[in-house]
């Protein structure tokens, strides 16, 4: 079990936790956190899976993770703003599912 594979497995675990939280939880903030966990998991797998190049660690995944984190942060900001607005206007913390399909 070389160390990088441990990260990949941990990443996969985080991804599954994230997806579960997003789908099952009703409270909006919880779901938002679920999505964050999901993105962190993906980044972990990205770093874990990066190739070992003779001259030291491969730079491309690092760059991707940085961009990914920026994107995740802005997405969370937007999500929280929306949750705030929904709470102000409708007083609910969760978004009910309307009709099956």
């Amino acid at each position: 079990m070389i160390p990088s594979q441990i990260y990949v497995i941990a990443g996969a675990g985080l991804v599954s936790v994230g997806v579960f939280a997003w789908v099952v939880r009703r409270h909006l903030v919880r779901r938002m956190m679920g999505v964050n966990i999901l993105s962190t998991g993906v980044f972990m797998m990205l770093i874990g899976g990066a190739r070992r190049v003779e001259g030291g660690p491969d730079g491309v995944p690092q760059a991707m993770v940085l961009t990914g984190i920026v994107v995740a942060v802005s997405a969370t900001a937007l999500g929280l703003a929306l949750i705030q607005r929904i709470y102000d206007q409708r007083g609910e913390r969760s978004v009910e599912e309307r009709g099956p399909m």
Partner: protein
Amino acid sequence: MRGLPLISASIWVPLLGALFVSLWPRRYAARCGIGASIASAAAALLLVVAVALSGPRRERLGGWGAPAGIELWIDGFSALMIAMTAVVGGVVSVYALAYFRAKDSSGDPQRQEVEGRREAYFWRIWLLVWAAINGVFASADLFNLYVTLEVVGLGAVSLVALAGGRALPAAMRYLFVTLSGSLLYLLGVVLIYSEVGTLALFQAGESLIAGTLAQAALVVMVVGLALKTALFPLHFWLPPAHADAPAAVSALLSALVIKVTFYILVRLWVVVFPASVSQPVGEALMLLGLIAVIWGSWRALRQQRLKMLVAYSTVAQVGYLFLVFGLGPRADGSAGWQAGAYFAISHACAKGAMFLAAGAIARAVGHDQIEEMRGVGARLALPFFAFGLGGISLMGLPPSGGYVSKWLFITSAAATGDVIVVIAVALGGLLAAAYVFRVLALAFERAPREGAPSLRPIPATLGWSALVLGAVAVALGLAAGAPLALLEVGLPFGQSLAEGVTP
């Protein structure tokens, strides 16, 4: 012509436009916005003409090479998509100009303030989304696709949220769907990168070997992108989002945004994944597509609200798009892919026209309930006519783009003896006719004696822009030669990559 950085221009111009709009005070937002959209449309069309004349183009951002830097690559298929975005985006901008402006005609200042802010935000976010869409169509880099896709998603969510009220929960649900979709796609990219070591689309395609990893990557990416394109089982978020958004926004969403993820899927199918991996998944997608056509139309028939009807019709038409993944690889030559691409652009125009017309009608009548709209036909002739033109293309009746794509679909299906697909395509047309004519019948119904519903005056540009989009949809039927020729440039669906122009 070759030297000019036209591809990056098509991305930068809308981006700068968005910036420019946000700098000016809110009062001038609309004027700057329309100016910026015209500029970006011009830039995009210039690019398309350049590609049509001198073949596919390639640009390296910042001069960095393929493995590290970001590659932009435009061939026939992406040029066609950019042209679609330019046309539909331009017309919708004109529509939005009148749509948001007319909104704040009602008295009290507080509402006017909110309307003013909403209008300003619309222009900023829309131009941003426009830039991102052009970015997706241009990028030949897997991760760059992710980034631009994410920008498109976030922009779209905020555009939906602009409408406030019942659009907020829809926007929330849309946000979750977009985020998780992109992340699943990113997961796929990660798996491919760990296998192939490069993010460039074309190089990844060459060195990716069929294995369990490739299959896992494909499945994850397909689920993510199908979620964002609202394919049948994963379409629950689309109707509320598209119906409750402002009319201009729902037109953009239905016409352009769902085509972005479709485009990425097609690129993955043709360039990245080997046929052996993608073939079974393609069949599954085609089956889901068939069910989507029937289910979407059935639900559209049962809707009470006009915009919900049109939204569910999008769900149905998305089903057509996904037929391509079953037909494309199987059919000899690129008939299947051509059908999908042509359907994408004609659906964009038709659905755009229908949503704009529905918006105009809803604005005039004051509500969205179809049953209460009896007898308004005579006074709202223009919007209903535009709705009809869009409907003709949706039904696949001549002389419309929908008819040509339906013809191509059936040709490719018949070539491989795929009878079920032929029947589904024909039946889909009939079902579309069912719900389109249900709305058109309102136009012909004479007002009941005891007084028809009173109508609020609406600016003429709403009706006329809807008509222009409808006319474009019909024109696509009459002059199908040119777009199809453009589609062939650079052999986007070339059988083997070898003779295609590889960067």
